[in-house]
């Protein structure tokens, strides 16, 4: 699949850093805490945290227990458990993921976050906002928007270097 342009991940990260930083100021987000969705979202959130000089430790979310496809797929292979090393209550949160597609991952992630407490706000940041939404969920900050067919997929590989790859199967 070579019809897609090469996407420069570093340039996209610059883009979302700027947009997020502006949004934090506009929305008067107070000492926001970053939460990455495993695994790609965690890589991105770590980069954003560094660039924005956020001191609160990084939150990492593994949404395996909140997926809506357990009765179709069963247990997912073992990955590291969620870790939110700060108090969620009343906090301004920035949720970070690599690709926003159907919206189901974000739905699951928000359900999990609310089991830790009640945040004041959640801002959604994604690297790629692609077509194919199945739920009323939208990104507040995105690096780029792509219109892809149902059999076209994009994924983030990493962590070093980070790069986007187009492929025919969803993994």
């Amino acid at each position: 699949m070579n019809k897609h342009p090469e996407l420069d991940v570093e340039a996209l990260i610059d883009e979302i850093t700027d947009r997020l930083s502006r949004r934090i100021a506009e929305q008067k987000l107070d000492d926001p805490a970053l939460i990455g969705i495993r695994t790609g979202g965690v890589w991105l959130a770590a980069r954003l945290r560094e660039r924005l000089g956020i001191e609160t430790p990084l939150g990492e979310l593994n949404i395996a227990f909140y997926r809506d496809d357990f009765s179709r797929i069963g247990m997912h292979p073992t990955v590291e458990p969620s870790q939110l090393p700060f108090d969620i209550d009343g906090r301004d949160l920035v949720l970070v993921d690599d690709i926003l597609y159907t919206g189901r991952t974000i739905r699951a992630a928000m359900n999990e976050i609310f089991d830790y407490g009640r945040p004041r706000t959640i801002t959604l940041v994604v690297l790629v906002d692609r077509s194919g939404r199945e739920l009323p969920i939208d990104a507040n900050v995105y690096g780029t928007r792509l219109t892809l067919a149902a059999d076209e997929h994009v994924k983030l590989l990493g962590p070093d270097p980070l790069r986007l790859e187009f492929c025919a199967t969803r993994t």
Partner: protein
Amino acid sequence: MHDDIQLDERGQLRHFLTIERLPRELLVDILDNAERFTVVGDRAVKKVPLLRGKTVVNLFFEPSTRTRTTFELAAKRLSADVMNLNIEASATRKGESLADTLRTLEAMNTDMFVVRHQDSGAPEFIARQVSPEVSVINAGDGRHAHPTQAMLDMFTIRRFKQSFESLCVAIVGDVAHSRVARSEIHALKTLGVPEVRVVGPKTLLPVGLETLGVSVHHDLDEGIAGADVVIMLRLQQERMQSALLPSGHEYFHTYGLTPKRLKRAARDAIVMHPGPINRGVEIDSAVADGSQSVILQQVTHGIAVRMAVMSMVLGSHAQAA
């Protein structure tokens, strides 16, 4: 048809009845999944929606508080609906057969039975009766097996000792009547523990234990010398009434774990017990409440391990559906 009723064609866990014959990778899977579930217990909301809408029936033909409670809590933390049935006191007394009781409960669309029974093999019998989309977990049957207890003990050992490869584990007490000891021996051997010892009086050790790859000791000091893990078994009161043993006092004198005796084990040895403990019979209070005791951690780990097993067996039906 697969010859092991516990596994499906893809080798996934369908029922959890015994540790015997299960591959090492599967036991490690259970431990790894349990590790992920431990964090749930530390959160504000101690619940995940994984088994939402599933119905779990705790079918207890034999009284139990701690096992039933931790199974119930595990199912609730997975968001399943749980019913506790104390069969001892209900249907069978009215003359209803086990098969009829099962059919009745299945008609309520139960997804999982957690079974404790005084007869060895009862959970397997039930697993062969139920329809294919229903799972059965053995919560202790006769003298046969108590696989979730063994796995929570393995989880506890891994947490404190990191790996199984160079450990010496001593199991002390009434091995003959203990389903816990039997399941533990299988789990320890499968996970690669090089040295497993059983320690107890001749009357409480079954013959032929050596064939399981363990060494047999009748002297406590010798049996726990240098051990990294000491697992004390509960001495059932009825064993003393049945003349297998002289008295609780005398048993304590010979096989009770005291601080002085524990010094013979490795310096950083941990002491475990499946509970409920008989203070002053198999274990001294100073040991049970001491710094090397991990008895209460075992209970906490039991919830996570049972969450792991429950989601694995119900998850196995997913692709099949």
